[in-house]
């Protein structure tokens, strides 16, 4: 539905207007704050599981892993609050703001565009299509590898955090059920760590696709995430 609407919008406006306001300020702000938090989370998280070489000197003079864990938890709160704000904006924002939260899976046309994009990435299509919001393929990837995964990381993360805060703490009461469900604390750590790798795989593809489409497609990408305006090049 959305993408059909997008197509019409794009075709109608494309030649006359050449640019459409797509990503509202809160979405853009969230994107970059979230991206930063994600990098901090992944790096600090990696070193929580595989710490740096031993620090020399007295224990009382050092607090390295303590700081790394602090960075992880601080970024985690930013990530969590940001995600909550982003969910809120999906309700009050424009229809593009809902794209990463729901997929039009019953829309045949949308699926055909997903496959069109797949062919485009496999070099089987010569001419890319125009989209006002996310392209359907990107939307699909974002839904599974960002939105679903992000909530998974949130639940496992705060469950682990609740272990530190202690039994009966707010994090334990809200998320503590995750740990027995996943088969124990160690298992939760392992899956949380695996989630980090999956998230990083998404980021690699995402950043590559953003840069590639910015160059190859018929519309602006990266500047859209900065200014909010989608420019069409033809």
């Amino acid at each position, binding site marked *: 539905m959305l993408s059909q609407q997008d197509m019409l919008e794009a075709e109608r406006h494309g030649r006359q207007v050449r640019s459409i306001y797509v990503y509202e300020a809160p979405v853009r702000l969230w994107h970059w704050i979230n991206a930063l938090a994600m990098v901090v989370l992944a790096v600090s998280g990696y070193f929580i*599981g*595989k*710490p*740096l*070489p*031993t*620090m020399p000197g007295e*224990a*009382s*003079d*050092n*607090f*390295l*892993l*303590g700081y*790394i864990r602090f960075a992880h938890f601080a970024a985690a709160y930013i990530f969590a609050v940001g995600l909550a704000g982003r969910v809120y904006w999906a309700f009050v924002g424009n229809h593009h703001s809902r794209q990463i939260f729901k997929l039009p899976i019953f829309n045949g046309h949308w699926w055909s565009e997903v496959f069109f994009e797949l062919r485009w*990435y496999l*070099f089987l299509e*010569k*001419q*890319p299509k125009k989209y006002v919001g996310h392209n359907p393929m990107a939307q699909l990837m974002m839904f599974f590898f960002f939105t679903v995964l992000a909530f998974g990381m949130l639940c496992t993360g705060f469950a682990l955090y609740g*272990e*530190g805060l*202690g*039994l009966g703490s707010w994090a334990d009461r809200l998320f*503590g*059920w995750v*740990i*027995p469900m996943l*088969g*124990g*604390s*160690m*298992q*939760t*750590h*392992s*899956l949380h*760590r*695996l989630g*980090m*790798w*999956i998230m*990083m*795989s998404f980021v*690699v*593809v995402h950043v*590559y696709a953003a840069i*590639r489409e910015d*160059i*190859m*497609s*018929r519309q602006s990408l990266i500047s859209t995430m900065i200014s909010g305006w989608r420019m069409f*090049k*033809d």
Partner: protein
Amino acid sequence: MTETFYEVLRRQGITRRSFMKFCSLTATSLGLGSAFVPKIAHALENKPRTPVIWLHGLECTCCSESFIRSAHPLTKDVVLSMLSLDYDDTLMAAAGHQAEAIIEEVKKKYKGNYIVAVEGNPPLNEDGMFCIHGGRPFVEVLKETCADAKAIISWGACASYGCVQAAKPNPTRATPVHKVITDKPIVRVPGCPPIAEVMTGVVTYMLTFDKIPELDRQGRPKMFYGQRIHDKCYRRPHFDAGQFVENWDDDAARKGYCLYKMGCKGPTTYNACSSMRWNGGVSWPVQSGHGCIGCSEDGFWDKGSFYDRVTDIKQFAIEGNADKVGGTAAGVVGAAVAAHAAVTALARARSDKQGDNQNSGDKQ
């Protein structure tokens, strides 16, 4: 006309003085104040004794071994006389039909009012024939005995989670007690074995207060399993400082740094070792220089090496941990992206040469 605990103890020759000492030790080990000492004494003097039947399934008896080594001889004597009076096939004097008759008798006489303590678990494959108790599959005996019980104690990792018998591929389908008995309150006291004082503490609590202790989500008594090893570990300052043992024979090992990098499972293990310690408080694994292996956690045999923090993930059939699986995936994705970028650049250069630059992004 059932006896009280106190009467039983006196009959066994335990003095009132020893009895009072036991009451105060119990109050302390349960984390209760001195005000509870008279309450415990009163309860033991006046309440009719609750019988305990102690069953053994698939197990190694390490729980019993731990239990009878409870630090305070007093506690041991008292609790053992409470227990062995009824049924524990490893400890009691009776044997054969005479012994089995006791279960029937307790079931009839104390219907709905006795406790079943289970050490080990029932295997379910081949109709339970992998564990025979008095000529019958253990699972049948367990179900029958528990049918009229007031509450059940699952001793150790075997009864609580399955432990080594249930380790992959679990040929006998050894199954934790709570998956077989679903209609009774069950207290899980995991560990391989559990700490002796934890075991006597749990039993005494249940016998004196006539109720089960407060449990966490996994059915473990909060007073002993409410915190992780890591939360009370005396090496924790080295963890926060980032000071780790990197080899068993390095200087850091001699200095007693944190064992996290040697695979210590303290951060993911709920037990009382770091506060109560073992063998009457003499030492405990981390104090003697070896990491915790997570013996009181679900499926600890199947989670890969005891000596690696980033351990295997059960959900994968193949052997693999988060870094192997995830790191490989990220590497493959990275390589694919690089290849894709190269192909894109080539295709673009070729189409530029042919003058077919309609999708090259150049302004028209």
